[in-house]
């Protein structure tokens, strides 16, 4: 399986990343990509930018653990996870996940699985910069609930 995990400040190009994953292969029948984009408002209030803080080594290790877990659950042929950090303005991409498989259900399930874990377990924190103010984004209970639906073992740290 082809796995790419990258943490970077720079913008990424979803098409170039997935093209590299697919190149020369004819065993992939389904490709799902998720792109998370910085919105121009949070809870109705306009924002100037998001600042993403992260814990570099742990983030990479934690993502790799969940990619391994996804591989153990489903017959995946390729996975890409790219997550940006630093200052990101509205309209810019924040992160992407791509999953490739022979069949669509596997690709969708793995992409949702990885997203649910990135939201709740990958050590990234969003701070909102708005006109004259700055505040940390609160974690959402619905994200924890979404991640818990994949739990089959009682090894969650939260």
């Amino acid at each position: 399986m082809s796995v790419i995990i990258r943490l970077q400040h720079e913008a990424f190009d979803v098409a170039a990343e997935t093209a590299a994953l697919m190149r020369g292969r004819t065993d992939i029948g389904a490709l799902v990509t998720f792109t998370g984009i910085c919105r121009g408002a949070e809870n109705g209030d306009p924002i100037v930018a998001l600042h993403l803080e992260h814990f570099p080594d742990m983030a990479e290790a934690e993502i790799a653990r969940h990619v391994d877990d996804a591989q153990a659950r489903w017959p995946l042929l390729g996975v890409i996870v790219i997550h940006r950090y630093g200052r990101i303005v509205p309209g810019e991409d924040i992160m992407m996940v791509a999953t490739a498989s022979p069949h669509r259900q596997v690709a969708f399930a793995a992409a949702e699985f990885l997203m649910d874990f990135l939201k709740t377990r990958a050590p990234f924190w969003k701070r909102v910069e708005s006109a004259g103010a700055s505040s940390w984004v609160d974690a959402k209970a619905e994200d924890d609930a979404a991640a818990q639906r994949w739990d089959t073992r009682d090894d969650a740290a939260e």
Partner: protein
Amino acid sequence: MKLRYFAWVRERVGRGEEEIALPADIGTVNDLMSWLAGRGEEYAHAFENPKIIRAAIDRNHVRPDTAIAGAQEIAFFPPMTGG
């Protein structure tokens, strides 16, 4: 022992990391948070509600009741909001 802080825990403590010699009687992550809360106003503020603070030992998520024996590095941070 190396301690690391992220997001608003870092902002409240006033630094991102530090080396600290811990008393021998600190058994768990929870014990460590209680002890840190007694180190001054900024720590008291950071750890005023330990229930909402997450911890990682050597870059693995751990529960608050996890023993810290053998840890090289312990990190404290709010619930994550990436993705």
